[in-house]
């Protein structure tokens, strides 16, 4: 048996006997993110659906001046609330979310066929504001348009002559693309799963092994340290990869459980796509794990290693957040950035787009080169005297 294989088997066996490692690497790591994600998404979707059907409560000031308008709005789903005094202050103090004020001279203007004044009173800094204001404004506009059309007919004119433009919105996003917008954070969660999966073993087999005083006896064996490092690397990578696969399977399942039809969107989680993602992530897993081991080898103690590795896993969050908040048109050079390139490709795969071979190949090559570079650094750390001797 080669020494590397011996180290690999021993690290795996020892980790499989550690309930804490198992729980973190194979349960919490891969499943925490999907569960949180699906929960959050279901909650958001349920709220939006609920709000769309719910009556819209509006405090109406001066309803008696425009009974027909109020009736028309109520037919569209508005719920009239009794008026309050000093409505501006009431809105500012959040006692009232949304108010409609019908101007004092509304009736006169209306009868004379002049545009009649109505005020929507709201506070745009409040969360509830946006969507509700839009709904009320749309109701008012549709009423305004109907009234205007009827006035034109009464004067013997064709209503459409008052409309200069006919505007229709035709969204070209495929249902998958709309889903991917919501799932923009998914690549990061997959990367996070790989991080958490490998983290325990990476720390435990370097900083942990040194702290438990077993690194010195290990290094006295007639085995080049690079081979020991490789064995540990493969073991950590195996756990990381398992964690990733479990996380990916959980997401694929979650994507089917979501009420995505209500949003006319779907996520492409065919087996072919899942397999491509697994393949794409393979070099990423090695880069992540060897970076963790390098950091853990530098640290003077287990706790210090945990702190550094914890900070390390926030690094890929930055491009992920940037990508999901403001999606960019991917340029070829972006695929040459490890982790970012793979995230872009994963998003395209999930959207159901055709992915050509060049960008993912470029990402993989760059990631492999980066992993080898970090490995060489880690090997240098492993071969230094201070690795085993704390004195």
């Amino acid at each position, binding site marked *: 048996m080669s020494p590397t294989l011996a180290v690999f088997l*021993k690290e795996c066996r020892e980790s499989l*006997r550690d309930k804490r490692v198992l729980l973190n690497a194979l349960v919490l790591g891969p499943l925490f993110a999907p569960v949180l994600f699906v929960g959050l998404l279901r909650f958001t979707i349920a709220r939006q659906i609920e709000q769309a059907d719910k009556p819209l409560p509006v405090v109406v000031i001066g309803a008696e001046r425009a009974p027909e308008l109020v009736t028309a709005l109520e037919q569209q789903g508005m719920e009239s609330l009794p008026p309050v005094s000093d409505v501006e202050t009431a809105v500012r103090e959040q006692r009232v979310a949304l108010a409609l004020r019908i101007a004092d001279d509304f009736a006169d203007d209306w009868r004379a066929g002049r545009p009649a004044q109505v005020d929507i009173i709201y506070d745009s800094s409040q969360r509830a504001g946006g969507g509700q204001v839009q709904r009320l404004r749309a109701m008012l506009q549709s009423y305004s348009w109907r009234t205007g059309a009827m006035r034109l007919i009464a004067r013997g004119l064709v209503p459409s002559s008052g409309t200069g433009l006919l505007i229709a919105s035709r969204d070209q996003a495929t249902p998958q693309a709309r889903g991917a917008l919501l799932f923009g954070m998914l690549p990061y969660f997959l990367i996070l799963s790989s991080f958490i999966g490998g983290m325990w073993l990476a720390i435990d087999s370097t900083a942990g092994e040194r702290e438990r005083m077993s690194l010195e006896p290990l290094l006295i064996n007639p085995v080049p340290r690079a081979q020991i490092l490789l064995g540990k690397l493969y073991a950590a990578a195996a756990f990381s990869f398992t964690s990733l696969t479990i996380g990916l399977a959980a997401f694929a399942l979650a994507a089917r459980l979501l009420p995505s039809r209500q949003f006319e969107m779907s996520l492409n989680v065919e087996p072919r796509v899942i397999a491509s993602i697994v393949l794409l992530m393979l070099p990423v897993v090695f880069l992540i794990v060897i970076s963790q081991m390098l950091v853990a080898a530098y640290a003077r103690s287990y706790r210090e290693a945990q702190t550094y590795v914890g900070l390390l896993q926030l690094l890929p969050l930055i491009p992920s957040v940037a990508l999901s908040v403001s999606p960019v048109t991917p340029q070829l050079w972006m695929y040459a950035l490890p982790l970012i390139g793979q995230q872009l490709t994963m998003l395209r795969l999930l959207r159901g787009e055709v992915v050509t071979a060049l960008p993912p190949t470029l990402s993989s090559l760059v990631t492999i080169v980066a992993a080898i570079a970090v490995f060489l650094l880690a090997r240098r750390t492993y071969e230094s005297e201070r690795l085993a001797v704390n004195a």
Partner: protein
Amino acid sequence: MIEVEQLHKSFGSKVAVQEVSFSARDGEITGLLGPNGAGKTTTLRMLYTLLKPDRGRISVDGLDAALQPLEVRRRLGVLPDARGLYKRLTARENIAYFAQLHGMDESLIRQRTDALIATLAMHDIAERRVEGFSQGERVKTAIARALVHDPRHIVLDEPSNGLDVIANRNLRDFLRQLKADGRCVLFSTHIMQEVAALCDRIVIIAGGRVVADGSPEALREQAGERSLEEAFVKIIGAAAVEGLA
């Protein structure tokens, strides 16, 4: 045969070992005696190639440790100062792991492990996980792990640390047995009685230097004293002896 010549090592500005020379012969037990902090562990760490000496030369069976570190390690069985075992593995798995790293095949591993378990009377703990072992059981497992590849040279750093009287007696018997096999045994200690009872040759280290080297009888003669303790006081000074036990 282990030969150490003019060894020198410093960490930053602190000189740990200077001009240390001694040799340990096959079929003999050599004791490295010195108070804590005298440079014993650093010397041994250079010997088993964990540390690189700044100057000086180490050879094991004529092989230069600086040039052929892997070959030298193959010939050494080491019980280092750090005894760390893998607590989630059984004693037998701990021993087998190091045997695999020595490139031994499964049947040989089985045979050697069984032999060591018998010699060290480890039957009752062999299949148990190391977590919860007593200090004596840990040292036994660590010794078995260090000797699984049947090395000709055995280097032990403070092997009696933390052992009770019975375990200590068993350890001495075991070291004598290794000597009787014709092996070269080198161990460090800060306990005078231990070297007096066991060693064919005593190397006394104080302040990073070798201050005396010879058989117990030679040391007694050199000092003109009957007891070894008095001889030590005369040779290395009362202050240094206070660091010994």
